[in-house]
């Protein structure tokens, strides 16, 4: 059961090998037993899950099931869920019960997925380790002293530990892919605009993109089939046609051109990670793909550019938390300024305060031209690098992270933490689809391989990842304590 993917479980449910309720009870039991060691769920929705499962069984009996009917999933706790707490990992929203569903939530609900719960995350998606949650850090199933990555660390941990079949996540600078690499799961950040952001609590609006954490590329394709598409409620969602992403999974890799950018294989990358990633690239070459060395020259500027722009967008987005209409409100405010300042002081954690103040500074007259506008120009240089590169290759292959998962509390300062996203954030700056898949282990900790593609070419990434996973079994490996 724990080794099965969505298609395997879906097939078994339709053949009535077990019911959706039975399946859901197995997962709820695992969550009760194993989640305390991980702290990966903020809310466990047992009643909702059993109700969803009962309805899914009825739907299967009526012959109206979709491939996701009865499939247990979890949502990152930044997707609004009607009637269920949506905290975004923050004290600010600890009391927030959303009056509506995010579009991603609604679509998965309509497909018949079973909601097991809401997963822990870095507060307001700001972090690369899941140490910045009001609800405490999440632990990595492969080593409980290590971080699972962030900000979608809870979603990554519950998929890796088999506490759910799949989970949603969101990625502004690597927040799906970095935790996927740290926990041996498949993490997909679609093209910006491919998936509706309606009902996703905003951190940095020109970067945020909803996606998936799954056991395989095939599972990711099945979920993307459901959550992708134009949404009238999100003016930034794209009206690009949505293909059936499962249809091209088995396409041949012959003549697929894969680029290896030299800037992604240098310091501070652990050379042993480079070796594992290059071995995986050679596997793809044996399957017919061609490998091409290339350069993305502005890559070293990725992290400062990302942090300038995302901090400004963060300061703007989080200005809405005034303690009046929703969110934490201080006791006995003297006047309106006291209300705002104390509610925000009490509601936000330290990392969020740092980013808001940084963003306030960078968008003030002191920082606007020298930092904010400059960073927007450098963003274009980085995006232009990709445009030129995709004239020569079909996709780009690199490591997902410079290191494997690090120990909780081990990063000495903010800059060191921010560099965790060194290899992932450029895809967000350019709005490109990007996918991390397991490609080996280093000192018993998982290593991720990153595939980044042309805008709206998720099908190609999923095809290459699926073909790799047919020839490698890294993604099927389970952490001992959770097998």
């Amino acid at each position, binding site marked *: 059961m724990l080794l099965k993917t969505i298609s395997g479980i879906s097939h078994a449910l339709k053949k009535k090998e077990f019911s959706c309720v039975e399946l859901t009870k197995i997962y709820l039991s695992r969550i009760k037993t194993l989640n305390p060691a991980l702290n990966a769920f903020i809310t466990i929705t047992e009643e909702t899950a059993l109700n969803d499962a009962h309805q899914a069984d009825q739907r299967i009996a009526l012959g109206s099931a979709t491939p996701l009917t009865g499939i247990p999933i979890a949502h990152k706790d930044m997707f609004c869920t009607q009637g269920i707490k949506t905290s975004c990992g923050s004290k600010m929203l600890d009391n*927030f*019960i959303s*009056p*509506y569903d995010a579009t991603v939530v609604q679509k998965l609900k309509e497909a018949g997925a079973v909601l097991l719960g809401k997963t822990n995350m870095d507060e307001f998606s700001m972090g690369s380790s899941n140490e910045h949650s009001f609800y405490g850090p999440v632990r990595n199933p492969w080593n409980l002293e290590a971080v699972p990555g962030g900000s979608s660390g809870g979603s990554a941990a519950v998929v890796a530990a088999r506490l759910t079949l799949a989970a949603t996540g969101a990625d502004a600078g690597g927040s799906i892919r970095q935790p996927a690499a740290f926990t041996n799961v498949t993490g997909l950040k679609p093209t*910006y*605009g491919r998936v509706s952001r309606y009902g996703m609590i905003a951190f940095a609006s*020109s970067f945020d993109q909803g996606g998936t954490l799954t056991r395989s590329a095939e599972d990711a394709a099945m979920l993307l089939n459901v959550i992708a598409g134009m949404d*009238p409620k999100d*003016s*930034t969602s*794209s009206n690009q046609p949505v293909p059936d992403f499962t249809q091209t999974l088995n396409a041949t890799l012959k003549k697929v051109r894969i680029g290896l950018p030299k800037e992604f294989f240098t310091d501070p990358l652990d050379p042993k990670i480079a070796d594992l990633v290059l071995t995986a690239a050679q596997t793809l070459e044996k399957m017919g793909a061609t490998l091409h060395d290339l350069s993305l020259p502005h890559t*070293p*500027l990725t*992290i*400062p550019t990302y*942090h*300038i722009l995302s901090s400004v967008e963060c*300061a703007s987005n989080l*200005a809405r938390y*005034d*303690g*009046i*209409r*929703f*969110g934490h*409100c201080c006791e006995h*405010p*003297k006047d*309106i300024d006291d*209300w*705002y*300042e*104390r509610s*925000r*002081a009490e509601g*936000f954690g*330290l990392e969020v*305060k*740092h980013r*808001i*103040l*940084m963003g306030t*500074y*960078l968008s*003030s007259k002191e920082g606007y031209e*020298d*930092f904010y*506008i*400059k960073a*927007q*120009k*450098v*963003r274009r*240089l980085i*995006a232009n690098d990709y445009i030129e590169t995709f004239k020569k290759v079909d996709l780009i292959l690199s490591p997902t992270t410079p290191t494997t998962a690090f120990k909780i509390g081990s990063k000495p*300062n*903010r*800059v060191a933490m921010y560099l965790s996203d060194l290899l992932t954030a450029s895809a967000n700056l*350019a*709005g490109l689809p990007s996918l991390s898949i397991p490609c080996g282990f280093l000192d018993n900790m998982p290593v991720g391989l990153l595939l980044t593609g042309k805008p709206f070419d998720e099908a190609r990434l999923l095809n290459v990842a699926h073909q790799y996973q047919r020839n490698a079994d890294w993604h099927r490996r389970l952490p001992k304590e959770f097998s």
Partner: protein
Amino acid sequence: MERKDILKFAKMARIRLSEEEIDSFADFEKMHSFLRQLDNVGVTGIEPMAHPLEQSQRLRSDEYDPKINRSSIQTCASHTKDFIYLAPENIKKSTD
């Protein structure tokens, strides 16, 4: 960045900082110099890029959605009365 600058930006952001939190901004200079890496990049003639899609944003029709009504939205607020959000002066009056 000096203490007075930190307090200025905290005031602009409407966040009251504790002494301990002010001290935590000691690494601000390290972050600032990290961001200064962009100083030497030539960007003459480069248009700023605010958004990856660079498409004009659609407007949606202004229609009533019965699932999102005033009372359900106001259940999230700490102080309301007769469908009005209460601010400190109103709260004082409403409890007098």
